[in-house]
């Protein structure tokens, strides 16, 4: 993923977590910051950062950092 560095930065910034808390195995609800509200903030940040508009189904399916990489491919974010 070419945009991986940017993707990770958005993740850390949107969830307002310490870099040490981040790892690529991160899943929804693994940490208190990634709750349902944090999820919406993350989705908005991805939309702003990559200039895309996520569909509702994709927002629901976005259940982990890795799953997010697959979903972003649909929006030509590789």
């Amino acid at each position, binding site marked *: 993923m070419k945009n991986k560095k940017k993707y990770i930065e958005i993740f850390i910034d*949107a*969830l*307002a977590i310490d870099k040490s808390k981040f790892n690529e195995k991160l899943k*929804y*609800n693994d940490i*208190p*910051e990634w*709750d*349902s*509200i*944090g*999820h*919406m*903030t993350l*989705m*908005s940040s991805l939309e*702003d950062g990559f200039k895309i508009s996520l569909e*509702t*189904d994709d*927002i*629901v*399916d*976005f*259940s982990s950092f890795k*799953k997010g990489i697959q979903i972003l491919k649909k929006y030509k974010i590789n």
Partner: protein
Amino acid sequence: MTVKSLWFNKPRLLQKIKKLNDHLRKNDGKIGTFRRGIELNYNNACNLRCKYCFTNSPKGDHVKDFLPLSKVKEIADEADELGFIEWDLQGGELLLWPDKLFNVLDAIKPERFYLYLTTNGYKADRKMIKELAKHGVSRMSVSIDSMDPKVHDEMRGRKDSWRRAMQALEYIQEAGMDPYLNITVGHYNAKSEDLRLLLDYSKQKKYKTLINVACPAGMWNQVHDVVCDEEDIEHIRKMRKEYKNLTRNLWNPFDNKYEKIMGCTTVNRIYITALGDVLACPYVHIKIGNVFNQTLKEITDYGFRIKYFRDYSPLCLAGEDLNFIKNFNSTPGKTIFKPVNAEDIFSKDDFVE
């Protein structure tokens, strides 16, 4: 695998929440005239006798009135069309009437809303809570006054109410709903050790904490010394950053820095009584319409014409804005069932076209 949270299983709701988030981003983080929620006092009867009840339930005020189911259904359908996100069902104590409550839930069709129940928890046993989860309730908010059971029970006027309320929160979490610990914070406890103990407990249990500031309304009508002063408010804001699981209705829930205030939500979150009267909020007992005579759109359009409800206010009008409280929200004898009409208390200049 999809995201595991009850409200994420509600695609219609998710669309509306996204719309709110987009609105806030485009509107400098301010709520403006977004229609956010409905707080329904479906019935005002209660099994406790709380000293500061804002609905005058301990005085037996209109405890036999229920909003008809057909009207609830009609309101819910229109609310969904208008983009309302959430319903807060409250009383009184609605768990006194489980069958009626389940009928109301079915009428609202919770799959369209973030639907929650505010309760004292006394009758919220495990079986009841599981049933509520099955009926689409996403969250239950349980009011707690203190970490000291004696203080809570005395405030609530009934023994064992603290233990039952705390137990209810555990059942709520177990059932997969969002457990909220509701705390009223006034000048009398804003900086107390007891409040800090409550906040610590809530965080340790992984609950959310909803803070309602004490308002001189209902049983506390005219009791102005409960109102938080500037230092108290600043202290609460600091605790928001420190704890990160605190919410207030006027805070921007999407702000990951825990600082932004989207503004007082009068009219954004309307309060409907069992008589159908619509008040600007649960604590501003100013009537802006009645659901038996007008549509929700007409009522909220009218409410937003009043500049105090339309304009951005970083302070809660009912609990923090002393000018508003003194000028408009201190009428003796005013209750949720005897509200002041908006056209009687505001001047023509207070309305905008």
